[in-house]
């Protein structure tokens, strides 16, 4: 069998609307016999940005004459609640009533600004700009009403979806003003006046979950849920080792599987992995099951390429060796060597964190439909613009011919910023001349991830007679994310080192940080909070080690080491410049007071002073990342089998200005469980260049019985510029747990996960 046999289907292309987040599904035909060839195809597109007459002050807002205000969410929804948050900011600035607001998910398009939903940027980078989009709309509506009434615009206000002239007790609804306002010149965003914060009615509060009703009824549409008539499904056998290629394909048995249409070899990637598909062999069939069976029936031989000898256990020794020798100096204050030599007491410790996989509940999936007109994509992506440009490049099309619709994401955590799977779908649709959905299995996801890097760190401290730390040496070595995009990279980037190594405030007179070389043998990617994971683990554990070596309260030592309230300068940190997550130090200083506050508050809430009692022990850690400060206290007990169990956790965060307090809290709760997964269980290993783990059986995540009985979250009220939220909750979790484990058991965990030590 060869070639695509696209059978006619009794299919309906449903019209659909994203009315307040509810995606209307198509009509499912009543069929006497349902077979793959007669599958009721439902759903086609997510709604494009609203069109038709009305006010369009910018690409984010549309006011229709019937009063419906469409607000675009240009960021991907993956659980962090952007769809429930960003549109409310715009609506509040406009004075729009959310009951008459339709949230429209943006396609990938540069006109929306950066859409890569990554780096905890959705609020912190767009807060002011989004307010201006709403304020522009409001200014035009107010001007239109003022003109109509012949009054001064300054005498008019916009609220409750209408413009009011209070002096004459007149009002006109937004819908009735839409066409009038549309005739006005559009003011420059910089020229519009923002409301005082006190007038933002909902922002900062507990906002309803826009997609909640859809998510509990199965109506939410994820990447693998979109159906097109004549759609085929592809499952791909990828080279087990990065840099490998298939050398022999026997597809005869695969082609005998009922429903399999064709077997297609994907191109071998050229140069660094970047966002390219890994290559391999695709089996395309009329159902997912047929494609999976077809793939299992393939007989393949591989050339595993230059990474075939990569062994992550052996590599651990390589990294440890790297950090036991001097490296490239990246941060320097005073003279660490002299201070160490003079110190009354010296402490040193080596830490290791293995590779980690993202393992979002929804494995990668993308549907592509390549036609003469171009390529249309539906996918769960954090990065619709890169999906668009990578597909355009792979197909030799102009990007304008590629449309990327963004579905809900069943988790992202950084994995879905990389559109390799989207390109696979596009290439296969082109070959098949039919819509093709690429479905990754869990095994594909675990084995072919862009892995969190693996790292070793060496920390050394010198203490004077009183126990005060006079010298701090921190060496870190890990394969860089840059290695995924450029050949021969051995050094960490400033951005990576800026996640804890360069920017953590240390009130210590002699500080030196160094970076050791490390070569990558797998695709390295960013995972929720990225290099902060291992840096916060090592630094947060080491501060605890110093405290115990002194016989001091870890909380007091934390506060002593970060020092007095101040904004830490570049000179104090001992660096020439600081990436600071893309923000200036003026907007987002290294504000030690905020870090002190979260530490003080989390210890108050958790009853830290009462200390260990009743078989429980507490551990503390704090970290600043993505411009927010977070402190965590974990409580650890022994369960009936003598294993450790995190039974309660406290999180206090200062994330600056908050749009949606409810989702901020849910993100911080989730960060604790995500952190537990990596601290307790997380380890991806490679043998012969290939990933050993296959599924949740051997890459376990925290489950319900392991979940703490309570996770207490407090968010510090703040008018400071917004910081990140999705990621900063994670870094302090693992060291807080490890510190609690030490307090409970006396076992110091310097290598994650805890499972490695038989503790869980």
């Amino acid at each position, binding site marked *: 069998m060869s070639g695509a046999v696209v059978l006619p289907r009794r299919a309906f292309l449903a019209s659909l609307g994203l009315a307040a987040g509810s995606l209307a599904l198509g009509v499912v035909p009543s069929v006497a016999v349902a077979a793959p060839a007669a599958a009721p195809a439902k759903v086609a597109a997510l709604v494009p940005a609203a069109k038709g007459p009305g006010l369009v002050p910018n690409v984010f807002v549309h006011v229709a004459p019937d009063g419906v205000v469409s607000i675009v969410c240009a960021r991907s929804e993956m659980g962090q609640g952007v769809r429930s948050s960003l549109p409310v900011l715009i609506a509040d600035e406009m004075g729009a009533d959310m009951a008459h607001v339709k949230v429209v998910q943006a396609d990938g398009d540069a006109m929306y600004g950066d859409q890569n939903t990554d780096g905890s940027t959705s609020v912190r980078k767009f807060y002011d700009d989004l307010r201006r989009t709403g304020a522009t709309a409001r200014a035009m509506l107010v001007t239109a009403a003022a003109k109509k009434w012949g009054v001064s615009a300054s005498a008019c206000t916009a609220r409750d979806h209408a413009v009011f002239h209070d002096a004459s007790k007149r009002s006109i609804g937004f819908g009735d003003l839409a066409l009038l306002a549309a005739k006005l010149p559009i003011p420059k965003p910089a020229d519009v006046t923002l409301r005082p914060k006190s007038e933002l009615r909902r922002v900062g509060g507990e906002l309803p979950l826009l997609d909640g009703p859809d998510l509990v*009824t*199965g109506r939410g549409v994820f990447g693998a849920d979109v159906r097109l008539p004549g759609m085929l499904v592809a499952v791909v056998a990828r080279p087990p080792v990065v840099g490998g290629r298939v050398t022999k394909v026997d597809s005869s048995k695969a082609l005998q599987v009922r429903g399999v249409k064709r077997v297609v070899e994907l191109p071998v990637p050229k140069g660094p992995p970047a966002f390219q598909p890994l290559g391999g062999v695709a089996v395309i069939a009329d159902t997912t099951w047929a494609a999976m069976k077809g793939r299992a029936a393939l007989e393949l031989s591989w050339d595993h390429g230059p990474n075939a000898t990569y062994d992550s256990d052996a590599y651990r020794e390589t990294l440890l060796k790297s950090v036991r020798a001097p490296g490239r100096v990246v941060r320097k204050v005073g003279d660490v060597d002299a201070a160490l030599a003079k110190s009354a007491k010296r402490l040193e410790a080596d830490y290791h964190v293995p590779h980690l996989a993202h393992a979002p*509940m929804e494995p990668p999936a993308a549907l592509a439909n390549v036609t003469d007109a171009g390529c249309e994509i539906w996918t769960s992506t954090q990065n619709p613009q890169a999906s668009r440009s990578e597909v355009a490049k792979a197909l030799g099309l102009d990007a304008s011919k590629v449309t990327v619709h963004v579905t809900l994401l069943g988790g992202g955590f950084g994995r879905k910023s990389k559109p390799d799977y989207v390109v696979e779908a596009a290439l296969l649709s082109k070959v098949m001349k039919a819509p093709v959905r690429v479905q990754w299995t869990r095994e594909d996801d675990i084995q072919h991830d862009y892995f969190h890097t693996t790292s070793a760190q060496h920390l050394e401290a010198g203490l004077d007679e009183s126990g005060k730390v006079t010298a701090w040496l921190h060496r870190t070595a890990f394969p860089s994310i840059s290695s995924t995009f450029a050949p021969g990279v051995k050094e960490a980037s400033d951005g990576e080192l800026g996640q804890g190594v360069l920017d953590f405030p240390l009130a210590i007179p002699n500080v030196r940080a160094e970076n050791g070389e490390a070569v990558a043998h797998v695709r390295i990617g960013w995972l929720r909070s990225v290099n902060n994971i291992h840096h916060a683990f090592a630094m947060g554990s080491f501060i605890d080690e110093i405290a115990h070596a002194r016989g001091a309260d870890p909380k007091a030592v934390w506060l002593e080491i970060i020092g007095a309230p101040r904004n830490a300068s570049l000179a104090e940190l001992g660096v020439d410049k600081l990436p600071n997550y893309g923000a200036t130090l003026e907007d987002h200083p290294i504000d030690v007071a905020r870090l002190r506050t979260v530490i003080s508050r989390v210890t108050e809430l958790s009853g830290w002073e009462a200390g260990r009692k009743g078989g429980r022990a507490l551990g503390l850690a704090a970290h600043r990342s993505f411009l927010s400060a977070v402190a965590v206290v974990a409580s650890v007990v022994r369960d009936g089998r003598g294993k450790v169990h995190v039974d309660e956790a406290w999180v206090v965060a200062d994330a600056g200005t908050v749009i949606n307090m409810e989702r901020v809290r849910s993100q911080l*709760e*989730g960060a604790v*469980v995500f952190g537990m997964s990596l601290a307790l269980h997380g380890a991806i290993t490679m043998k012969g260049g290939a990933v050993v783990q296959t599924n949740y059986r051997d890459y376990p995540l925290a489950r*319900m*019985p392991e979940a703490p009985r309570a996770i207490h979250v407090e968010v510090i009220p703040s008018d400071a510029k917004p910081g990140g939220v999705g990621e900063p909750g994670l870094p302090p979790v693992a060291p807080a747990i490890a510190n609690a484990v030490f307090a409970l058991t006396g076992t110091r965990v310097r290598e994650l996960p805890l499972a490695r030590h038989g503790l869980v």
Partner: protein
Amino acid sequence: MTSPDPMGTAPATLITLRVNGKEQALDVEPDMPLLWALRDVLGLTGTKFGCGQALCGACTVHLDGEVVRACVTPIRRAAGKAVTTIEGLSPDGSHPLQRAWVALGVPQCGYCQAGQIMTAAALLRKTPKPTDAEIDQSMAGNLCRCGTYTRIRAAIHQAAEGSTPTSTREPSK
């Protein structure tokens, strides 16, 4: 056919079952997992694919009222039986669990939540007022990568109590 048919090339026979109250006759391979019959053949995409190995529970449905993982349940095992998916749990999303889930803001990404709710629904039918330990035991097969477990526990208690939804929120300072 006198020999086994490992490649599944033999003509299939119709498999009949009831899905969410509606009779269906499926012309599919008898080894096709119920999950793919629901998703690819019947277009019921509320039931999710997470692992394919009964390790994560994203595909949880009820088969004659019992919890099964649809990803490892061959369609032939569902022949003549009644399947309930998340789409059929309630006509309008008004099952007490669905209401509690929304009231407490349980979902983050939401991908696992259909499976969570289907497992919890079966638990409540047998154990109307479960303890934390009973919840932990029943829900242990359902993974949530976003980490919504504490809210899931609270929502199950709330649905069990049939009380007016209240928030898990703590008083803000």
